[in-house]
């Protein structure tokens, strides 16, 4: 994430905090932004306004995981590293053995992960609880 983009994001957060102060502010970055960068931007904003930060959630696309892991592993690891919660998404489209295989690939790179499907509700409660 470049300096100007980080500055824009911080300025936007400050404006929202000062003008609206919503209970929740969701940040949905482009896929090229990794979790470390999001944490750094969160810290920058705290220099002159107060807000709570986190959780930092990373979604790994279940059905495309194997392809992405082979083609864009560095990016995926950048998303996973420093995340509070890693969720393998769209698990309703996966067979059990496919999910187990993803778990085996991930085990050396994150402390834990959850299966997630907004389609059938799998894992949504865990995400909500993390925000409570």
């Amino acid at each position: 994430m470049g300096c100007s983009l980080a500055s824009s994001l911080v300025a936007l957060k400050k404006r929202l905090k000062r003008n609206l102060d919503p209970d929740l502010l969701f940040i949905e970055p482009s896929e090229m932004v990794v979790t470390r960068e999001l944490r750094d931007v969160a810290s920058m904003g705290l220099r002159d306004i107060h807000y709570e930060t986190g959780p930092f959630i990373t979604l790994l696309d279940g059905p495309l995981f194997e392809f992405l892991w082979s083609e864009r592993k560095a990016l995926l690891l950048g998303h996973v590293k420093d995340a509070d919660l890693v969720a393998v998404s769209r698990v309703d489209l996966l067979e059990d053995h496919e999910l187990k295989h993803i778990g085996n690939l991930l085990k050396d790179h994150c402390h834990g992960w959850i299966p997630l499907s907004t389609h059938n509700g799998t894992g949504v409660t865990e995400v909500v609880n993390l925000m409570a």
Partner: protein
Amino acid sequence: MRVVSVSGTRGSGKTTLIRELIAHFNTRNKNSAVIVNEEGQAVYDADFVLSHDITLEYIRGG
């Protein structure tokens, strides 16, 4: 204000999860705002934004 970040590759379900969370917390009288990169702007349709009283901001390139 609590800042919640949802990262992932395109199509991984970031917007869908955020919409789910907004709807969940909206029923508990928690209001939300979203900062979304321009790729994701089309997914927050006007009906959803209005019905959940969301403030939506876009950021270019982020």
